[in-house]
């Protein structure tokens, strides 16, 4: 899979792929790996990523294990964080402000949005830091660097899966029935994973060079939360602002996730736009990451 651009005929990079010159030309066997200058083209080496796939597993395992080591509550934090946040928002928006969430009870409305949102926010926060906090690895050993921020996202999926039990309990409590819409839940989780991965890849690569992003990140996350229909329904947004909200893929993903959870009708055009933007963002992030990757060890 080529990510366009700068693809010169000799732009082949390492491992298992066909080298750029023929056997006859070299006179001997083909090299196992060819190291060329940093001016070469950008491409996503899928074969290499596949070759190292077990590393993603081990990095994810590390991130999950390390996160709750030496804590009193351990893995319970995965549940405490969304539950407490849900209570606060239920109190403020459900009781005091009384926002209209239609057919969905506010606690369920908030929790369904918050689970996805917290997955996104935590994944992005962790992956943004990931390359810099793993600089000892980056400067000492070669492996596809993409796996470092990616492991932060996959570790987030583990948390999300555990926290999903809360949602099961709460839908049971409110007696929400099953429907075929439920089958699409993994699809929206997948979309959110892709979005978290693309933002995480982009931010982590840029943070290697510009540490400013670390300081800006809490604001970005906070603003993004308020710009997304996580704790309030999209219906409270005035008509002319709603077009703008279309550009925020979180909106389409969260609303779609709720619809499939509650068995409500899907807003397909909105979901399609969110999916399209996510895919585009992912391609841009892959490109930027690969472009900057070769200089990580030198500037980190």
């Amino acid at each position, binding site marked *: 899979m080529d990510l366009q651009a700068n693809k010169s005929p000799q732009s082949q990079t390492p491992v298992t792929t066909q080298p750029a010159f023929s056997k006859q030309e070299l006179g001997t066997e083909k*090299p196992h790996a060819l190291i060329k200058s940093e001016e070469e083209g950008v491409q996503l080496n899928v074969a290499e990523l596949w070759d190292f796939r077990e590393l993603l597993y081990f990095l994810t395992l*590390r991130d999950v294990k*390390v996160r709750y080591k030496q804590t009193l509550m351990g893995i319970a934090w995965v549940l405490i964080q969304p539950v407490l946040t849900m209570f606060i928002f239920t109190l403020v928006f459900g009781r005091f402000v009384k926002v209209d969430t239609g057919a969905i009870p506010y606690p369920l409305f908030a929790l369904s949005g918050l689970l996805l949102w917290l997955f996104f926010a935590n994944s992005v926060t962790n992956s943004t830091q990931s390359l810099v906090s793993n600089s000892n690895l980056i400067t*000492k050993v070669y492996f596809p660097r993409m796996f470092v921020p990616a492991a932060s996202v996959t570790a987030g999926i583990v948390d999300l899966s555990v926290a999903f039990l809360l949602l099961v309990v709460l839908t049971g409590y409110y007696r929400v029935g099953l429907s075929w819409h439920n089958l699409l839940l993994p699809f929206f989780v997948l979309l959110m994973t892709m979005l978290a991965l693309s933002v995480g890849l982009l931010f982590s690569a840029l943070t290697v*060079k510009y540490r400013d992003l670390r300081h800006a990140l809490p604001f970005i996350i906070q603003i993004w939360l308020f710009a997304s229909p996580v704790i309030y329904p999209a219906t409270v947004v005035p008509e002319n602002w709603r077009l703008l909200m279309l550009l925020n893929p979180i909106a389409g993903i969260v609303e779609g996730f709720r619809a499939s959870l509650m068995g409500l009708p899907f807003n397909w055009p909105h979901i399609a736009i969110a999916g399209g933007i996510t895919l585009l963002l992912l391609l841009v992030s892959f490109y930027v990451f690969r472009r900057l990757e070769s200089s990580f060890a030198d500037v980190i």
Partner: protein
Amino acid sequence: MRAAITIENLSKRYRSGGLHPGYMTFREMLGGIITAPFRKQSFGNGTNTIWALRDVNLNINHGELVGIIGHNGAGKSTLLKILSRVTKPTTGQVKLYGRVGSLLEVGTGFHPDLSGRENIFLSGAILGMRRAEIDRKFDEILAFSELEQFAETPVKWYSTGMYVRLAFSVAAHLEPEILMMDEVLAVGDAAFQQKCLDKMHQIRQQGRTILFVSHDMAAITRLCKRAVLLERGQIVGDGIPQEIVNQYLSSNWKTGADHEWAGPSEAPGNDIVRLRRVRVCDESGSTVSAVSIHNPFAIEVVYDVLKPGHVLVPVIELHNEQGVELFSTHDTGSEWRHKPREAARYTSSAWVPGNLLAEGGLVAHVSIMSHIPATTLHAHERNAIAFQLVDNQPEDSARGDYVGPMPGIVRPLLKWTTTAAATSPI
């Protein structure tokens, strides 16, 4: 011979200053963020850059054990980093024929909060091992580290020695066809170092290629069949370890095994005596820069006496690489001890017996003094000559069959006696 590594015109340029020379506004920075990923990395006019490597060409064959030496900043680590693909070269290319494993530090990928067991898997995976491979070798790795009873303890509670042992054990069980190591031998106690060296021998005997950077010249001459000397990013020597190590030591002390002063004006000394030449020679009288540890050698001092009537004593002080003074010797035995000299050229030699000193680089300070009527220093030259003692014919030296690092500044070949008791103790 099958090639393992082919390096062609390899160069690496680094910025010497900070990331951004001078001041940068927030707006420029934002502009930089947006355009940076789409821009070719350019270094401007090159005034703020240094070449860590410049036009390096090197071919290494399968099964070679090559030592890379050089001063700090000569480019050794940069070369290993490029070969292990941590960083990319600025120009040139490298072809690697075989699976590469690199050990640029001890404990790559270790996480302090994880247990020994978990770290074996994590570090193994980061260093390029498959999960099935780690599973298979797990017991062996743990046994090699001698840490079986601590497998479930977080490594942050390990002592430094335990940590290093576990880390090296993982690394030692990598089975790359090409192994690159950066100073990892300098860890652990003597017994563990011996284990590591045995492992290296084993890897080498399996026909694998090893490339290692070290400041331990004795290890380089003992283990390698080939050494490469880097200086300011370029290869300035490539060949037999003894010769290359000598070249390195000579450039270190700015002198070699033979030091001759061109004219009396440059030569150290006063109006009474001047040094003309200092060299190391063997029993046949030829200059040697690498002396086998079991052979006697002489330090020969040639000097001109310009004014007659003085009683002169040549003095030699010998130091090792660590700066430890091994001995200081005055000419006490020759006929000239109490005899005033005529104006002439003299040659004095001090003979050092074989099997006395330990292997390694040596440097000699040379002086000419008078003790009668009062102690006077006429000529003095620090670091007059540098040479090395090598211990690579173990059958003739105190080393015996042991190949590891051998401590001590002297290495006498002693007479040993061993007797067996007539009756069994059991």
